[in-house]
Each structure stands twice: as C-alpha cells, then as structure tokens.
C-alpha cells in the first residue's frame, strides 16, 4: 500500500478485501457503507482507489475483459484494473458509493467464478438455521418476501445473494448490497436448503422444475459480466452442480405472511441428487 493511504478491510462472503484510499472522507464513506462487514482478517486482495471529480453514475454497459493476465473493468463512472495473480488492483472513480458497490460486486463475481461460487440476483434469508433463496424477474416478489418475514428470520440480502460451495452443497452469505429494502444484510451464513423462483398468485404453491429449466433460470439470474469463455464454462459447470445439489422450485405465493409457513414446511430433495 502506498504511503499516505489508509485502508479498510471489507469481508463479504468470507473473502477479505482491503480498500485503500488517501481521501479520508471516502474512507469514512466506505466504513459507513460496509459497517457490519468490516474485518480485521488479513486481506486476500487489495484495491487502491484514486478518486476523480469527473463522472456520474452511469447507465453505460459494464465492460469486463481480460488483457494479458489483468482484468479491466470499465463503465462510464469508473475504470478498474485487477490482477488475479498478485491479488491487487486499482480503481479510478468519483466518490459515488454506487460505483464502489458496482466495482466490488464485479470483483467478487470474478473471484467467486474461479472458486465455484456465484452472485445471484436473489433475496436470501436464514430460517431455522438454513438459508433460502428467492429469485425471479423484477416485481416477482423478492423484496415482498423479505418484508413478510417473521421476526426470527435473518435477512442475508434482499437483492444480491452470495453463494459458495461447501462440503456437501452451497452456503449463502449475507451481503451489504441492498435493493428496494435499502437495508444491508446480516454478516452471517448458512447452508442453502432451497432456491425458489417466485411468482405471485392467488394461493401458495410449490412446483418442481426440470433440471434444464432450473439451470436456464439460474443462469439468467447469475451476475456475471466478463466476456470470457473459460469463466463462462466454469459458471455453467457450477450452475449444473448447484442444480444437482440444491432443490430448486417455483414458488407461487399470495403476498401475505403465510408464505413463510410454506417455506418452513418445505423439505425438498434435489431432482438429480
């Protein structure tokens, strides 16, 4: 780390990343934003932030590509370079927290892809020691489901679920990446019991999905930005493994608190375990 820089270590999904800057107000911002995910662990990776005045939050498409061994991550509001061998990278952006979130999400998606995990556009929560994931198109009910959760449910995220393989399946970790709920998830994890693709309907009902339909829906909701065939191959293999190990169902639900009775009572086995 260069002289004059200060760093905060942010540990999401058990992966500690040092975020360093020479701007004290930016350091305060990221400490506040990732409060609950700050860590004293030895960082596995380091990102150096150099702040610019230019740029606003951009609607441009994100470009993630590999040049030599280095990942280049670019959007209108930030430019980042990350070397997966040294574990170090640099980011040029303004002090916008949404740009910071985007860079972190992309970095984690690249790290996870190599480790057999992934980020999923899904809400997730822990119920009776097991994690449940809720995915679906925008408006399907991810935030609604988390809003309806009883008091003993631990929210991991209402927007971006963090998944890593464990010895016999997958674990879901809490993330600070919030959606409509505007609330950070809890910094904890649990083994995944099921992934539900949500649809609102007149009654609560759980339906099976074929394995290929499950993979298709899963791939549609995985956050991945790199145009890189080898990583896409790994991701597809991971999705197939996930489908083999985790029950995936369509959950049609009437939006009231009884949906959580359906979830508590769910005991599924993967279709192709």
């Amino acid at each position, binding site marked *: 780390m260069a002289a004059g820089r200060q760093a905060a270590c942010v540990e999401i999904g058990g992966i500690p990343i040092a975020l360093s800057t020479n701007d004290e107000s930016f350091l305060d911002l990221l400490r506040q934003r990732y409060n609950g995910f700050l860590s004293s662990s030895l960082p596995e990776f380091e990102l150096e932030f150099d702040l610019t005045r230019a740029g606003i939050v951009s609607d441009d498409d994100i470009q993630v590509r590999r040049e030599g061994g280095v990942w280049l991550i670019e959007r209108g509001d930030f430019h980042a370079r990350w070397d997966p061998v040294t574990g170090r990278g640099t980011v040029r952006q303004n002090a916008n927290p949404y740009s910071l979130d985007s860079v972190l999400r992309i970095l984690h998606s690249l790290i996870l892809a190599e480790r057999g995990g992934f980020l999923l556009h899904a809400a997730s929560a822990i119920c009776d020691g097991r994690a449940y994931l809720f995915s679906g198109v925008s408006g399907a009910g991810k935030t609604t489901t988390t809003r309806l959760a009883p008091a003993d449910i631990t929210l991991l995220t209402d927007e971006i679920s963090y998944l890593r393989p464990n010895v016999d399946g997958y674990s879901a970790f809490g993330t600070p990446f919030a959606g409509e709920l505007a609330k950070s998830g809890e910094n904890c994890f649990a083994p995944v019991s099921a992934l539900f693709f949500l649809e609102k309907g007149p009654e609560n009902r759980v339906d099976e999905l074929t*394995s290929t339909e499950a993979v298709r829906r899963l791939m549609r909701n995985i956050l991945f930005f790199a145009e890189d065939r080898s990583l*896409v191959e790994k991701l*597809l293999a991971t999705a197939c493994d996930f489908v083999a190990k985790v029950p995936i169902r369509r959950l049609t639900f009437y939006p009231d608190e009884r949906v959580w009775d359906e979830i508590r009572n769910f005991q599924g086995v993967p279709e192709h375990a």
Partner: protein
Amino acid sequence: MPEDCIYIARSSAIAARALAGEMMVMNSADSTFFTLNQVATAIFQAADGHTPLREIVRNQICEQFDVDPEQALADAEQFVADLSAHGILLVSNQPLAAETPR
C-alpha cells in the same frame, strides 16, 4: 462437392454442457443461453467444421430419429441459421476449423 454444401462448426465463444439428455449452450460474448433438444444436440455435437450438414443429417439425424430426410434437412438448415445468427455456430460453404469441445 455440391455448390450448396454447408459446413458448420461450433463457435469458440461458447460454453456447452449436457444435462438430462439436453445440451445447454451459452454464448460468452452476450450471455445468451440456449437449451437444445435431442435432434439439435446431435447436430451441434457433429458440427466439426468438415462434415457437410447434409451428411450430418443423413448419418446422425435420419439414423437416430424417425424423420423424413428432406424435412430433416430443411429443419436442420433453419436450426443452423438460428444458431448462426446468435453466434453459436459458424457456417460456411467451405470446411471450417472446429473450435470448441463437444
């Protein structure tokens, strides 16, 4: 070799995986995702760049599936055109280098 001979090869930009008898194909360039049925999977797997499509249909499709050869070829040409438009298959009237694993 007839002038209308079509050769097909899998693009180097795709990832593919078989599951439950179907082939799932993802284009890494734009993240489009396709699930191929058994007939389409047979054509996809035979797309080695140097076997003409007509021969693939005759040897792979008509031998494995109870289909009319002319109809099978017409369907295969449509399928190849669709996947070619999405960058999954490369099409040429000359032999091509095979680019991806089966």
